């Protein structure tokens, strides 16, 4: 079981409130991603769930039990840190065995579980090495191994992939997704990378300055963002924001995703000169300098023949999002 409820929790450091009153329900078995820009309070929120920080007010309920004041070790949660936080003086085997040793399991049982985890994570050949003798990806696997042997109620990940290079990051991402399918254990995953959030999550929690902007599935957030912030954060390349007046719209501002614009030679809602055209083969990213509006990005098919300096039109070919002065969706 791994059902976590946050009720009106707040967190202040000295006089600064980092998390204003916040409510959240995480269902058993769910893969929840906290996403938001750096400094928005993602790690703090995760650490509150872990028990590494105390809430300033509010309650945390784990599997029906009040865990607000429980020590980290009593919450039955496992955490994977951005820095891996492996024990440098212990072998890989001892690192993975540590939580089991703390739980007082006997030696045979520990050996069995460590071997099992090592096999799942391809670490069997490295069990006698120290963390210092491993690559970044292997260290990450050890950290995950240390988390899974305990069979926790939920896994907490704090930007676990951000120290890895791009190629490895994509690999580890799918490994973690596979692991979730296998174990079906609740996972709470923190990242600032919206691509990671979109590809991994069942449910995304978008945070902005400690406040939950929106909670929803990746596609819900993509199709019906509740605010300009969510609209701009989810989706790549980013949504274009254009003053309403530029399109004869009563809204303060309108938003159009780059993939919902067509580049045309005649007509179109906006016209301007091509500032850059990136031909990727599969897609072409076109940046158009529209007088009175600014730069507008479009993502169009790969074979289009547009080049720097061409005079083109942009035609809206999809939904238009409308926002008021406060950045709320209308």
């Amino acid at each position, binding site marked *: 079981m791994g059902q976590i409820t946050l009720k009106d929790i707040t967190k202040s450091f000295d006089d600064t409130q980092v998390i204003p009153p916040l409510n959240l329900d995480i269902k058993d078995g769910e893969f929840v991603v906290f996403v938001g820009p750096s400094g928005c309070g993602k790690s703090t929120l995760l650490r509150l769930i872990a028990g590494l920080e105390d809430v300033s007010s509010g309650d945390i309920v784990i599997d029906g039990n009040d865990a607000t004041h429980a*020590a980290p*070790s009593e919450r039955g949660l496992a955490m994977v840190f951005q820095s891996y936080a*492996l*024990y440098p003086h212990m072998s890989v085997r001892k690192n993975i065995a540590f939580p089991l040793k703390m739980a007082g399991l006997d030696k045979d049982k520990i050996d069995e579980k460590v071997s099992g985890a090592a096999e799942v994570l391809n670490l069997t050949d490295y069990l006698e090495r120290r963390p210092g003798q491993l690559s970044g990806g292997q260290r990450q696997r050890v950290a995950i191994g240390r988390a899974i042997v*305990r069979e926790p109620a939920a896994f907490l990940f704090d930007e676990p992939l951000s120290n890895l290079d791009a190629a490895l990051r994509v690999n580890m991402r799918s490994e973690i997704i596979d692991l979730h399918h296998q174990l079906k254990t609740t996972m709470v995953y923190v990242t600032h990378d919206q691509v990671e959030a979109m590809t991994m999550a069942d449910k995304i929690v978008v945070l902005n300055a400690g406040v939950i902007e929106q909670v929803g599935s990746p596609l819900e957030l993509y199709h019906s963002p509740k605010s300009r912030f969510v609209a701009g954060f989810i989706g790549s390349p980013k949504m274009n924001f254009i003053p309403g007046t530029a399109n004869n719209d009563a809204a303060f501002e309108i938003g159009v995703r780059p993939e919902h614009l067509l580049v045309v030679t005649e007509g179109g809602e906006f016209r301007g000169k091509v500032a850059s055209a990136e031909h990727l083969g599969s897609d072409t990213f076109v940046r158009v300098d529209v007088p009175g509006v600014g730069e507008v990005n479009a993502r169009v098919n790969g074979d289009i023949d547009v080049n720097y300096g061409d005079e083109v039109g942009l035609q809206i070919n999809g939904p238009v999002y409308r926002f008021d002065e406060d950045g709320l969706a209308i």
Partner: protein
Amino acid sequence: MARQQTISNKLVWTVLAWILGATIFFPILWTVLTSFKTEAQAISIPPVMFDFDWTFENYETVQERSNYSRHFWNSVVISVGSTLLGLLIAVPAAWAMAFVPGKRTKDVLMWMLSTKMMPAVGVMIPIYLMVQSAGLLDSKTALVIIMMLVNLPIIIWMLYTYFKEIPGDILEAARMDGASLKNEIIYVLTPMAVPGIASTMLLNVILAWNEAFWTLNLTAAKAAPLTAFIASYSSPEGLFYAKLSAASTMAIAPILIMGWFSQKQLVRGLTFGAVK
């Protein structure tokens, strides 16, 4: 071109380092050489370097005239005792400052260091009087306590910088892994801190061993360590350079040997945090 420059650069630095090293080492070498000369050769002008009649007579005289082993034992008790006592106080202090810092932690650290900037003579009289009224003049107890207090700021600072280097994440990971505070300290903190504690200990044994101001001023005969043993050959009987050198050599030999065998640990300790 650039490569050549770095090579000649390296050469210049190497030569400079060797000159500096030799300059620092020369007095020690000279002392050791002089201890094997006769008194006449020791003060002969021009001085002789190696070309003299090697003799052990200085060592024999020194052995006959004073009790080396008692001084040696006093030095061991004072340096090791004060270091252990210091660690007992400094380890919890440094833990607290490194892992649960308060608003004033930095100020406390600076204040402790500032006490080292005061010349020892400045507090000579009050401390002498305090030791006297406690009836502890010429006792090892007094010196263990005074040496501990003198070096405590350094011990705390060294341990603090060590503990600071232990990533908080690792301690938190242990907590998440179900370790109690006791197990966290036994299985995670201490093994990672042992190299730091060891080099702090080594350095402070050396500092206390070589300390001369308090050891000379607060002891007479019973508790006098090797520093007093050397000093006894300097003034009262006129200058006997060869015997003084023999006494010095005997006094510094133990610590030099210890330092030689633990130099790796010491260098690591002193540069810890500076080079990663």
